[in-house]
């Protein structure tokens, strides 16, 4: 394999990794703060992407500049997802706080299905893939076979900056301190005067906005969105969060990039080593390795004992 092709694989892997990591961070936030697994996370991502698409259709004639269009659709999409996240936390998650965790898992699983079906049935022609607007500049430089496009670079940078910003928010800000306090021990945090309900709502708004951002990045990268896009992304994000150490911020990022690396390696190596095995098995390969890692390190790569939650 030549170096330029290797670079192309690396860029592909990093793009996937950053999207997975953002999704995984959402799962980790919910679990860290409230010990809940919110299975509708992938579908919130899809709703965010469709909200962005709808906003674009609505404003396409109003603003000329693609940057301005992008800004508006990001703001609207993230706000809608955050609002949805708050509603879910207020009316589904908090009332079920005393119920067994399996109930929350089931409720959010069903909510995800409902959201998916709503888009499929009620979004105009919702069952077909939708072209997502190409709002980012598509020019790029070619080094041999390797093409570095500006849009890929912008998306990658956005992803990395977002992850760093969330990390700073959690470690340096007052809200972050409150989130971490609730994650460590919600009872003590309450006694110390932290508004538990408010922190839960903020966490869900943050997680859902992150999901919407991942959805928009996905749309801008692939130039296509569809009603079922959140399904696999949700499962991958969740697996990434689990393998990294569910509830651990850094674990989610490690897990996201690890999963992307495994998929890329699987797609390249599997057909090369076993010619009869198509690259379609790359997910099987990636999940199989994740299962093995889980067997070896049941609490995740960065386990709770060695680090703080969230």
């Amino acid at each position, binding site marked *: *394999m030549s170096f330029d092709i290797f670079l192309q694989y690396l860029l592909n892997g990093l793009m*996937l990794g950053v999207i997975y990591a953002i999704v995984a961070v959402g799962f980790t936030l919910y679990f860290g703060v409230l010990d809940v697994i919110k299975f509708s996370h992938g579908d919130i991502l899809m709703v965010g992407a469709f909200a962005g698409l709808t906003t674009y259709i609505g404003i396409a004639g109003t603003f000329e500049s693609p940057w301005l269009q992008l800004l508006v659709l990001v703001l609207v999409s993230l706000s809608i997802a955050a609002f949805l996240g708050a509603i879910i936390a207020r009316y589904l998650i908090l009332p079920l706080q005393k119920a067994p965790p399996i109930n929350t898992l089931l409720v959010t699983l069903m909510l995800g299905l409902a959201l998916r079906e709503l888009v499929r049935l009620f979004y105009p022609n919702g069952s077909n893939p939708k072209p997502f607007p190409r709002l980012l500049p598509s020019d790029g430089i070619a080094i041999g076979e390797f093409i570095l496009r500006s849009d890929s670079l912008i998306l990658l940078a956005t992803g990395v900056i977002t992850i760093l910003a969330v990390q700073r928010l959690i470690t340096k800000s007052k809200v972050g301190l409150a989130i971490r306090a609730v994650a460590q021990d919600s009872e003590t945090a309450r006694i110390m005067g932290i508004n538990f309900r408010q922190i839960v709502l903020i966490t869900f708004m943050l997680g859902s906005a992150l999901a919407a951002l991942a959805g928009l990045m996905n749309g801008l990268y692939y130039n*296509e969105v569809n009603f079922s*896009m959140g399904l696999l992304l949700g499962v991958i994000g969740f697996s990434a969060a689990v393998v990294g150490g569910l509830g651990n911020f850094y674990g989610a990022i490690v897990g996201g990039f690890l999963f992307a690396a495994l998929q*890329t390696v699987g797609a390249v190596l599997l057909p090369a080593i076993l010619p009869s095995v198509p*690259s379609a098995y790359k997910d099987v390969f990636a999940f199989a390795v994740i299962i093995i890692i889980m067997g070896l390190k049941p609490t995740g790569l960065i386990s709770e004992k060695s680090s703080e939650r969230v």
Partner: protein
Amino acid sequence: MKSRISTLFVALVISISGSVSAKDTVKIAYIGPLTGGVSANGIGGRNSADLAVRLKNQDPNAKYKYELVAADDECKPNVGVQVATKIASDSSIIAGVTHYCSAVAMSTVDVYHKFGLPVMVWGAVLPEITYANNYKEVHRVNGTMINQNEVAAKFLTGLGYKKWVIIHDTTDYGKGHNKYFSQYLTKNGGQILGTFGVTADQQDFTAELTKVKELKPEVVYFGGLTPIGIRIRTQMDRLGIKAVFEGTSGIKSDAYIEGLGKLSEGSLSFIEGAPWEKLPGGLGFIAKYNQQKYPDAPEAYGPFAYTAATLIIDAIEKAGPDRKKVMAVLNNTQNVETIIGKVSFDDHRQNIVPLISKYVAQDGKWVVWEDSLYAKGQRKLGQ
């Protein structure tokens, strides 16, 4: 009192004569993907079958009144089997116009055979649907992917292309296309640099396509359906792959062009039969279709669904609403004039369709190759 009795008598006579002239209702089924990624084709097929039913119901000489029972197989084999079982076990349904997706059609043939429901496939192109078993219940009005791939392979080798990469989904449909296309391509002197099997719901193809880029093919052949066709074509562009994109009948839908916009330009597709404008009864079909004001287009396989429904209705008119008798009539279909041309079934109840049409996406529309700017040399593929 007398007048009251006579009024009653008249009313009685009217009601009896009314019930005598009212026709019995006969149900026929339609099964196709009404939701999901290829639903545009499924809905077009449903409307077309519905058109056949509506037209027959307007015919004063029709012996029966027909009702179309439409069901959604979601293009998923497991859903298809459930729906087929529900339809086939309903004894009030006499026959069915069934399936656009090959993987679904393949998984349901046993059900129709078990329940003795005569069906006519209207869109699925996998040869095994009719040829793998000898089920007298299963007929197919459209051609198979064997004919399609023979033309697809000859066409581009004839234009001077030599190096191919094949990407196919790993369903029966995609694997079948890979098999027959590879066979005819090597026969015609084409070289296959690599074959990639991908899943039907895969989102990211950048790893496979990076490998494709390394192989430097002149043509990327894609055996699969519209949703991943759109994704692969988009991601080819992202990675700067300039090869010609050669699809199958699976991407011949308006949704493909809508999903890709300008990027669809120059994509190729092949279908059995001809565009409706060139079908013997195409103009009449589209005029009647438009009269009914369906909100969606009949799509590429609508005329086949219409023909399948018409043949079934004609068989019921001839033999009465009895599954076995209808099946016998359908089995013996030879040289029947329809809107798609003459329909004749071979020994496996497969319609012999010698005509395959080549299409190229040009300025946001599928255009028959011979009429396109590409054929005239004004545009070049893969630019």
